[in-house]
C-alpha cells in the first residue's frame, strides 16, 4: 500500500509539472500587442559609398533593395509596443507623421497598417521579425527610407 501511494504521488508531481509547462503560452503574441521598431535612414546616390555601422544588420537588404544608392546614413531609431486595434505615431525627420496601426496581432503573421502623412496608407501582413521598407520622401538631397520591423 505504501509503495503504491508513493508511486501515485510521484506521478502526480510529474503530471503537475507537465501541466504547468503546457500552461505557458506558446504563441508569440498571446498578449494581443505588437512591438514595432522604426528606423529612419537617409539614402543618397552621392556622398561616397558608406553604410553607417548602426545599419550593419540591414546592410545586405539595403544594398539589394536600393541598388544605385551608395550612401546610407542612420537618422533615428524608435520603437513602440502597440496594442491590437490601436495606433502609434512616429515623427520623421522631415516632420511627416508615420502612423502604425496594430490590426491583427494573433496567428503566424502580423497585420499592420502604415500611414505616411496624408499621402497614402497601406496594410501589410508580415511574419514576426521580418523587415520591410517604405521609401521615397525627399530629404536633404536624398530620400528617406523607413525600415519597419514588427514582432
Amino acid at each position, binding site marked *: 500500500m*505504501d*509503495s503504491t501511494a*508513493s*508511486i501515485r504521488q*510521484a*506521478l502526480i*508531481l*510529474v503530471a503537475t*509539472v*507537465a501541466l504547468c*509547462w*503546457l500552461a*505557458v503560452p*506558446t*504563441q*508569440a503574441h498571446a498578449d494581443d500587442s505588437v512591438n514595432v521598431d522604426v528606423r529612419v535612414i537617409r539614402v543618397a546616390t552621392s556622398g561616397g559609398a558608406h553604410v553607417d555601422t548602426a545599419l550593419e544588420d540591414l546592410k*545586405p*537588404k539595403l544594398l*539589394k*533593395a*536600393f*541598388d*544605385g544608392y551608395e550612401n546610407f546614413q542612420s537618422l533615428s531609431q524608435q520603437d513602440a509596443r502597440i496594442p491590437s486595434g490601436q495606433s502609434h505615431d512616429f515623427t520623421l525627420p522631415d516632420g511627416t507623421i508615420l502612423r502604425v496601426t496594430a490590426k491583427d496581432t494573433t496567428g*503566424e*503573421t502580423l*497585420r499592420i497598417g*502604415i500611414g*505616411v502623412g*496624408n*499621402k*497614402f*496608407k*497601406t*496594410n*501589410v*501582413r*508580415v*511574419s*514576426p*521579425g*521580418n*523587415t*520591410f*521598407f*517604405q*521609401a*521615397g*520622401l525627399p530629404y536633404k538631397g536624398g530620400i528617406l527610407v523607413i525600415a519597419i520591423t514588427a514582432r
Partner: protein
Amino acid sequence: MQPELAQLLERYHDGEVSADETARVESLLESNVDALAYLGTLDEMATSYRGIVADQLADVQFDGLWSQIHAQIQPEVAAPVVATPASSGIAAFFKSLFADHKGAWIAAGATACAVAVVMSFIGNPTTERVIEKQIIIVESVDQMDENNMVLVNSLKDDNTAVIWMLPNSASNDEAEDNQDSEGDSDVVIEDEPL
C-alpha cells in the same frame, strides 16, 4: 488399576473431561476406593510440583532478560530494531520515501525528462515558422495624394519589400531600376508571399 481408568482420572484431575465423563468419574469415586486414592495421589503430586516451580522461579532475575536475549540476536537482525527509535522526523520520512521507492522515482524522473524534451520541440512553433517562411504581403494601398504614386517592389531573394512613394512628376528612372512591377497602374500590389 486399569490404565484406561487411570487416564480418565488424570484427565478429570486436569479438567479435560466431558460432561458425561465427569458424571462417570464422580459416580465411580463414590464406589471405588482405589480410584479415590489415585485421585488423591494426583493432587499431592500437583501440589508438590507447584511448590518446586515456585521455589525455582523465586531465584530467577528478569531484569536485563530482554537485553540478554537481544544481545544474542544476530547483528543484521538487530540493526533495524536499534534504528527504529531514531527514524522519526521529516528527514527520515523523505529519506525512506526516496530510498524505498527508488525505482518509482527513477521512472518518474525519466518521464519528466521525456516530457520536457517533447515540449521543447513543440513549444515554439511560431519561431520555427518564422525561420522557414518569411512573409511580407502588401494587402492594399490607399493613395490619398494624386501628386504621388505608390509602387511595391518585392525582393524575394532577400525576403523583403519596398513600398515606394514617388512624385508623379518625377522621372521613373529610379523606380524602374528597382521595381519588378507589370502593367500601367500607379499602384502595384504584390499578392504573393515571399
